[in-house]
């Protein structure tokens, strides 16, 4: 998946084409799925995956901006999702009587989830972005684990007197009419499931607009410049720290938005759900889809979320096969012969940037 080169190469000539393909995939996919839903041809198992898939895509698009475009390995994306999710759950829970309309509450929850994750991204980014390479990666991992651990010890309730907090031990005694929103390791229970697939799709479209329009602007070019050559970027007057921060904060914000949608899709949600493995899972979507390749990210996320479900017939072996497929795909995509074959295919079909993604399918 050495897409860095081909992607950036296409920046100039294929700017609008790649963007169009991304949008088309999402819109056509949405229409198809809505049709399947209307005609009752979608199994309940696939229906249950619809919202999570949109969440993963949004979080992965953000992470691709961070890992692919900005070139910094981030192993803590789940932490930002977690924050967004529990923020969203609290917001929705607090507003449930004031705003009965689920859609409006969902939108407010997503906006606030994105906002708080961005703020945290900024706060974390200050120390994190001082480091380089693998050291930066481990610090994002550490922050992810810290966020998980903190939320795991957080007790939030609401009663007529407002929000009630407690830490480590549940010392809350809520007034009558109050309810617990987050109960430490038990997480959130009894959440109103207001997340919808349509909102998820709109969120993907917004994420795409943000990410693409950012990449093709002054800041996006600066982000890539800092990735390609830090010293040269400084020598033409680019503040490397600020530039990397922008990518980090936007990535965190998108993860927060995705998290809020995710959290409001389940009636119960435990903080341990957002662990290191989830961060890794999203990173896998990004790397397999191609660094910096947003269309690839969308396709690989969809394929990799569906894959274990499609392998369900193989029962216990499915995760084993999933692992083998992952390894084989990485090896093949770095094999010179396969690479040559792909570029030949690419020339023949002129499929543009989706070639790797096509090959993945």
């Amino acid at each position: 998946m050495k897409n860095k080169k081909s992607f950036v190469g296409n920046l100039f000539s294929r700017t609008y084409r790649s963007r169009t393909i991304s949008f088309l995939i999402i819109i056509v996919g949405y229409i198809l799925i809505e049709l399947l839903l209307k005609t009752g041809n979608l199994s309940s198992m696939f229906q249950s995956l619809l919202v999570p898939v949109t969440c993963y895509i949004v979080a992965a698009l953000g992470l691709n901006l961070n890992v692919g475009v900005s070139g910094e390995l981030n192993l803590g994306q789940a932490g930002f999702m977690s924050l967004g999710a529990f923020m969203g759950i609290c917001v929705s829970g607090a507003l449930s009587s004031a705003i009965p309309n689920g859609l409006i509450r969902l939108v407010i929850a997503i906006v606030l989830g994105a906002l708080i994750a961005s703020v945290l991204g900024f706060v974390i980014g200050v120390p994190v972005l001082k480091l380089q390479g693998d050291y930066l990666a481990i610090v994002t991992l550490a922050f992810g684990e810290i966020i998980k651990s903190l939320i795991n010890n957080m007790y939030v309730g609401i009663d007529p007197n407002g929000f009630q907090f407690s830490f480590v031990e549940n010392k809350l005694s809520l007034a009558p009419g109050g309810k617990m929103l987050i109960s430490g390791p038990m997480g959130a229970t009894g959440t109103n499931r207001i997340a919808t697939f349509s909102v998820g799709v709109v969120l993907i479209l917004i994420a795409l607009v943000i990410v693409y329009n950012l990449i093709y602007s002054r800041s996006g070019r600066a982000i890539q410049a800092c990735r390609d050559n830090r010293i040269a970027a400084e020598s033409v007057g680019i503040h490397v720290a600020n530039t990397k921060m922008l990518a980090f904060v936007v990535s965190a914000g998108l993860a927060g938005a995705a998290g809020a949608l995710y959290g409001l899709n389940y009636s119960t949600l435990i903080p341990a759900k957002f662990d290191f493995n989830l961060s890794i899972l999203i990173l896998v979507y990004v790397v397999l889809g191609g660094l910096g390749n947003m269309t690839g990210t969308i396709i690989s996320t969809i394929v990799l979320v569906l894959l274990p479900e499609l392998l369900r017939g193989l029962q216990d072996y499915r995760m084993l096969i999933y692992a083998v497929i992952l390894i084989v795909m990485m090896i093949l995509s770095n094999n010179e012969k396969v690479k040559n074959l792909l570029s030949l295919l690419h020339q023949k079909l002129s499929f543009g940037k989706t070639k790797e993604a096509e090959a993945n399918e």
Partner: protein
Amino acid sequence: MAFLSYLINGLSLGSVYAIIALGYTMVYGIAKMLNFAHGDIMMVGAFVAFFALNSFGLPVVVSVILSMLATTCLGVVIERLAYKPLRQASSLSVLITAIGVSYFLQNGAQLLWSSSTKVFPSIIASGSLRLFGGALSISYLTLVTITACIAVMVCLTLFINKTKTGMAMRACSEDKGAATLMGINVNRIISITFAIGSGIAALAAVLLCATYPTLSPTLGSMPGIKAFTAAVFGGIGSIPGAFLGGLMLGVIEILAKAYVSTQLSDAIVFAVLIIVLLIKPTGLLGKKLSEKV
């Protein structure tokens, strides 16, 4: 006295982290890759030792050696099949492959072994050494663990510094191209590194399971992450760094559990790591990164 006892417990846990971290750091130093499957290799070692002890009733020493041999082979095979084809690939591709290997080992272990809960038998006499008129007691297990860690550390240091292969390893970690020109078979050195790192992981597994005796296919993941943290803490690629990082991590974890909060101990460990990296961006004993302009 309570503090001293916590400290010793911390050193014991830290010794286990240190042994795992040594494997992490050696592989990183030579192959420049984060082998996220290292914790899972350790898990396989734990299961092999368990079956050797329980099902075949082999003596402890034989079981440990058997388990180390098994993980050594496993490490070499994984390197050959999964990582070797990716020598020229980007570090992210290798990272994802390592994660694939980790999934593979975890799910493989799940299929093979996890139908029932398994409790690791006690392998070391349960007595303890009493000091200061009984005010401080150190279990034999703790003593064995700490001793084993020091022994591993001493052997590794001697191996790296005194033997021809060790010298070749140091050469490879400095500059693979130049090492090749000097007639060093880099692929062989990488294999040996994986063999040693994986082998000592089995030792760590036995020591870990002697303290926390429940076996599960995911038993390697959290110690794996902790050991990775320890390796970075000490300066990844540095062998004394991994040793120091592992011990410190264990001590911090136990002290945090004792004096602050059990639930928050992981958060505290990671927070200390972040603070250390902010003060020393390449870890306690890591080399300074510099770029020639």
